[in-house]
């Protein structure tokens, strides 16, 4: 960024290449000198963690694809062959299957961090929208990946979700037939889902590159939500943030490894170890946990088309979020009222997730309806109004001011870097 200067490369080969194609200069600018606000906390590591998860998924997925057979007759057995006979196949598959969950955990935390600290506001609107597109691509990829083992939940999940499109008038049924490649979820569906499941991660990768490019134009947000005023407010990305993110990544990997090695099927559904059977419907068709809040919204609306629109709307509001939030102040730290509502929204998302796992009847249906109503109320009513009504607290003059104010390392640590001196 501003204070970046052209690096001097000693290696003659690097020098030769760089003078013709300045990729080394670019990498140096973006990943070595890139100035990070010095007050970012560990929540900022989840972007890096999500990026690493994407790489892990592509690497394990590639090897799994070499062993998997996308045919309804043998798909289930080929997965079991991976689990039993392929060298470390069980490890690859469990790393991949649990990796999807861990990827969503990282991305959801990353998004809620953005919500809390106002990272979607000017000048980061496109950065945020690219993030929402990444979420959409992830959802499509994860959904199609879950279909591949061709277990009961694979089959019935695919049936339920693809059938959603039939809710649209006139074009609905042709769309569903087109998605299926036939008149039910069958071999053509599995084949195209496998092809798309292989393609989409690379689309995802391209989106991540754009996301990062947009980030490096505006620079990273920080817990105070104010722009760095100069070099005293920032640290170079390397080594400061690489080491800090590195530590966070390793801690994240510990949690990930705990799932992979000690509870590999905890996040899955037992029914998916039963081969797909179009004649037997499972008692409860439940999507993977990361879709549950959206599933709750879908079922909360009594009308099928309404439910589908509400579900897509739940993501669409995120796209226009930068314009729904009218407050000029980014960080929740200085928005005492919005901060309360942020936490209510976080709880609302969890409640919706729980309701999504329950049968859509009785009290849970009622709770899902209230939760859905509140979700849209938060984004469509509260956010535009709060920006006008709320009186934000005074913002500090610069990032280093509250860090250094009050003297002494303990005070500084206690304020802006809560994890540092523990």
């Amino acid at each position, binding site marked *: 960024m501003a204070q970046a200067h052209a690096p001097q490369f000693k290696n003659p080969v690097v020098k030769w290449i760089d003078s013709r194609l300045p990729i080394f200069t670019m990498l140096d600018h973006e990943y070595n000198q890139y100035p990070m606000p*010095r007050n970012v*906390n560990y*929540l900022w590591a989840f972007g890096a963690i999500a990026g690493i998860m994407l790489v892990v998924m592509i690497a394990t997925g590639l090897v799994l694809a070499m062993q998997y057979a996308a045919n309804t007759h043998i798909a289930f*057995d080929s997965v*079991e062959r991976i*689990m*039993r*006979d392929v060298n470390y196949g*069980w*490890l690859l598959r*469990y790393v991949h299957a649990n990796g999807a*969950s861990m990827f969503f*955990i990282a991305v*959801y*935390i990353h998004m*809620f*961090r953005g919500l*809390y600290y106002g990272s979607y506001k000017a000048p980061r609107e496109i950065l945020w929208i690219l993030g929402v597109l990444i979420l959409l691509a992830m959802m499509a990829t994860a959904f199609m990946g879950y279909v591949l083992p061709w277990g009961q939940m694979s089959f019935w999940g695919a049936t339920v979700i693809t059938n959603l499109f039939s809710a649209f008038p006139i074009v609905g049924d042709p769309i569903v037939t087109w998605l299926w490649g036939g008149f039910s979820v069958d071999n053509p569906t599995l084949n195209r889902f496998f092809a798309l499941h292989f393609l989409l991660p690379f689309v995802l990768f391209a989106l991540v590159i754009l996301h990062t490019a947009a980030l490096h134009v505006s620079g990273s947000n920080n817990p105070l939500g104010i722009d760095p005023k100069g070099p005293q407010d920032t*640290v170079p990305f390397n*080594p*400061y943030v690489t*080491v*800090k993110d*590195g*530590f966070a990544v*390793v*801690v994240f*990997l*510990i949690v990930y*490894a*705990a799932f*992979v*090695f*000690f509870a*590999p*099927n*905890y*996040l899955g*559904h*037992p*029914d998916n*170890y*039963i081969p797909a059977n179009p004649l037997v419907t499972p*008692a*409860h068709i*439940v999507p993977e*946990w990361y879709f549950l809040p959206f599933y709750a919204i879908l079922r909360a609306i009594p009308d099928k088309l309404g439910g589908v629109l509400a579900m897509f709307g739940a993501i669409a509001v995120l796209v226009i979020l930068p314009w729904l939030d009218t407050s000029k102040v980014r960080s929740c730290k200085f928005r005492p009222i919005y901060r309360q509502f942020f*936490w209510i929204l*976080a709880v609302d998302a*969890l409640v919706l*997730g*729980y309701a999504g*796992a*329950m049968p859509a009847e009785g009290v849970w249906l009622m709770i899902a309806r209230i939760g859905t109503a509140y979700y849209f109320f938060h984004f469509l009513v509260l956010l535009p109004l709060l920006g006008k009504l709320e009186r934000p607290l005074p913002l500090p003059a610069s990032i280093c001011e509250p*860090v250094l104010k009050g003297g002494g*390392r303990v005070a*500084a640590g206690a304020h802006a*870097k809560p*994890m*540092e001196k523990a």
Partner: protein
Amino acid sequence: MRALKSAILSAALALGLAGAAQASEGVHIPEQSWPHSGVFGTIDKASAQRGFQIYKEVCSACHSMRLVPIRTLAGIGFKDDELKALAAGYEVQAGPNDAGEMFMRPGTPADRFPSPFPNDNAARAANNGALPPDLSLIAKARKGGEDYLYAFLTGFEDTPPEGVTLMPGMNYNKVFPGHQVGMPNILQPDGVSYADGTKATVDQEAKDVATFLTFVAEPHLDARKQMGVKVIMFLIVLAGLMYATKRKLWSTVH
């Protein structure tokens, strides 16, 4: 700090959802303590071998285990020659031969366990319309896993509770969804005579079968957990080093 704490809490809650949601449905399945549960748990090989004996003498009359090669049993202590002898006891269809005919040959350890019925319809026809499920993955394909299998195998009642009328040919089971199951109460005291001399109580038999089925559903369970302990110990040490490096580095910033 608060934000971070809450974030971790939310993640934990979100993770808890799937499990909690599943636990709240159906009959309560009491958790048993298995030698293979827990971080350091490994499959009790003697128990799994007894479980295999029951599978071979009892279960396999109706239940297939079509995904499991016979050689898998090396994981519970069968030696090469034992596996060969065991496999040779099975007849496996092979062919076609030069005359274009299918023929039967003795099994080899590389063969999968032969199924008792040629197809699902034949299985239903022989079992009063009920389909005995394949047992290759049964321990992972039921909520509660081996705890469920144990509860199911010990959950039969000769006389159903008052007010319950069983359909003809059905049996009452406390934990089976709907309580009516085609499978009879098959485990009897001393129903098998164990090769290792263990007393064959119903409780013992059910535990052995559940252990064996856990093993065949997850033949790499022991290797997985052992690798997990190493991986996590390595990561904890690495995390410590990373944290120390990070603190040293950032101490110049504040």
